[in-house]
């Protein structure tokens, strides 16, 4: 049976490649970017299992939007006038052509609303060659009523890693898109392959690249590097800074192989210096944690951060405060659940919510840690549990309210966790 399935995947991949070649080059100005490369890229075949990873956001009019991928691999959005799972309308399929969409674990489609009725959906499209991908985007100028065809966000079109996208609008309406990119590592590898290379060349991890769009995703500035030596397989967290800009936090590979976390203001000039180190677990690891951080602004300055790591031999999800520069403020604490994983954090004024999932061998539990005093004290809340497959719980805010949303397999659960 498995062989039959494998054959089906090959067949799909072949069909996808054939369809790629049949698409008219000038169907859409943004659609045509596939043809800018020297060769047509083979997209990855559809995953064998259902992809559960969803995202959600509130539009400026307060409606809840959920974006995900259905069993046929099609991108969909669902909307609700109130933050209630029962109020979610039926899935509306958004045309993404033949794109394959990563929607599992740390890689998920996202919907982001900006000013002037702008909205974008971003996702990573895995390509057939292992570890490669492209960051794709669809844009809307009417608040999500209509979306463009998907297009590739970055200028670099090598068939290499461009994955784990993260995007947000800043206070001025500039759209920032960030992703993990291996062009620098690939360039060094190529140099190493050159027989003229006389010294050992290596590159730790990947890099964080980004670009900016000042017209809601219609046009983009150049690909810019935010930092060298990120981890290769973990999501990037974004949070607003007090000046109206954005701050990014990601798992970094500090010398020689410590997979802690770094933080940087998005848009700061790249220097050769190591970015600010936000965590000091000193987890020496040559492996893929697939476990990115969460970040939210703190009421009294600085940031709330959550992350997973191994410190002095103990693996745990931890919470810590960072100062305005992103440096640790005080000692981090472990979340009150030894099996907590994939934690997220949101803040709104004095309200802070940290949420995670935890598996006890029988059921997965969705738990939250809720603070109404800017993180001075927290109360644990058991939010839900399920016995089957499930996604990571996610958090989102609307004004002073913080909501949690969990794709628990057969149903979506939405809870208001702070107001």
């Amino acid at each position: 049976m498995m062989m039959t399935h494998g054959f089906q995947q090959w067949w799909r991949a072949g069909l996808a490649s054939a369809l790629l070649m049949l698409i008219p080059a000038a169907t859409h100005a943004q659609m045509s970017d596939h043809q800018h490369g020297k060769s047509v890229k083979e997209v990855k075949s559809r995953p064998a299992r259902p992809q559960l990873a969803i995202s959600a956001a509130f539009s400026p009019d307060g409606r809840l939007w959920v974006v995900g991928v259905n069993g046929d691999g099609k991108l969909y959005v669902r909307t609700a006038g109130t933050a209630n799972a029962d109020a979610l309308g039926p899935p509306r399929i958004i045309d993404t052509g033949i794109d394959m969409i990563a929607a599992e674990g740390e890689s998920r489609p996202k919907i982001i609303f900006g000013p002037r009725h702008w909205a974008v959906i971003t996702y990573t499209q895995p390509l057939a060659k292992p570890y490669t991908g492209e960051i794709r985007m669809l844009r809307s100028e009417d608040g999500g009523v209509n979306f463009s065809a998907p297009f590739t966000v970055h200028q670099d079109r090598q068939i290499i890693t461009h994955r784990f996208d993260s995007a947000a609008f800043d206070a001025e309406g500039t759209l920032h898109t960030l992703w993990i990119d291996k062009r620098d590592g690939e360039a060094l590898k190529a140099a190493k392959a050159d027989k003229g290379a006389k010294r050992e060349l290596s590159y730790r991890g990947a890099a964080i690249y980004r670009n900016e769009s000042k017209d809601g995703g219609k046009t983009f500035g150049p690909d810019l590097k935010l930092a060298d030596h990120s981890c290769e397989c973990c999501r990037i967290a974004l949070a607003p800074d007090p000046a109206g800009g954005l701050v990014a936090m990601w798992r970094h590979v500090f010398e020689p192989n410590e997979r802690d976390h770094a933080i940087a203001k998005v848009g700061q000039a790249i220097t050769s210096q190591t970015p600010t180190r936000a965590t000091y677990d000193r987890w020496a690891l040559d492996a893929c944690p697939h476990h990115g951080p969460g970040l939210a602004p703190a009421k009294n300055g600085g940031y709330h951060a959550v992350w997973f790591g191994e410190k002095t031999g103990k693996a745990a999800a931890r919470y810590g405060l960072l100062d305005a520069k992103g440096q640790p403020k005080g000692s981090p604490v472990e979340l009150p659940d030894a099996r907590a994983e994939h934690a997220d954090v949101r803040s709104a004024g004095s309200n802070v919510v940290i949420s995670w999932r935890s598996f006890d061998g029988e059921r997965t539990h969705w738990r939250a840690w809720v603070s109404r005093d800017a993180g001075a004290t927290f109360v644990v809340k058991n939010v839900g549990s399920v016995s089957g497959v499930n996604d990571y719980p996610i958090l989102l805010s609307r004004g002073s309210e913080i909501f949690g949303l969990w794709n628990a397999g057969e149903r979506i659960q939405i809870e208001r966790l702070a107001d």
Partner: protein
Amino acid sequence: MNALLTKAGAAVLCCCLAMAAGAAPPKTIEPFDGKTWKTLSADVKKPTIVVFSATYCTHCPAVIQKIAKDKAELGGKVSLIGVVMDEEPPGLLAKPPYNRVDRVFVFEGHEQAVRYTINPEWRGITPYVAFMAPGKPVKFFTGAPPARELGQFLALAR
């Protein structure tokens, strides 16, 4: 043309070496569900190394290749099993490093639950490596097993 012949020759040589070492590539992908680990670990007849990996794990292929290379020197005295936990990549059996292992599995069902059956302490980090030998407790490593540990384990088969 010469380059082509050289590449073809190298490929033939690799195949011959692999066959000489008893490393016939697996022919099927087996499902790895909540019961598989119990069965595997209860049925260890010779030193066996299991490498759990994922399609996004850039560190995994090198670890499997290294173990496969060391194991090849021991003929069929050690078994190497590759387990992919997130999805089944196209052409899995035909591509390195999975064409160099003895058995290939892909997770089936509830990933968290399957992982838990292997080791409740495993948080999904890959590569995750298990050393199994008859009459000995299973030893787990996150990332590549240290060279000394690997050497000691392989020595069991010498």
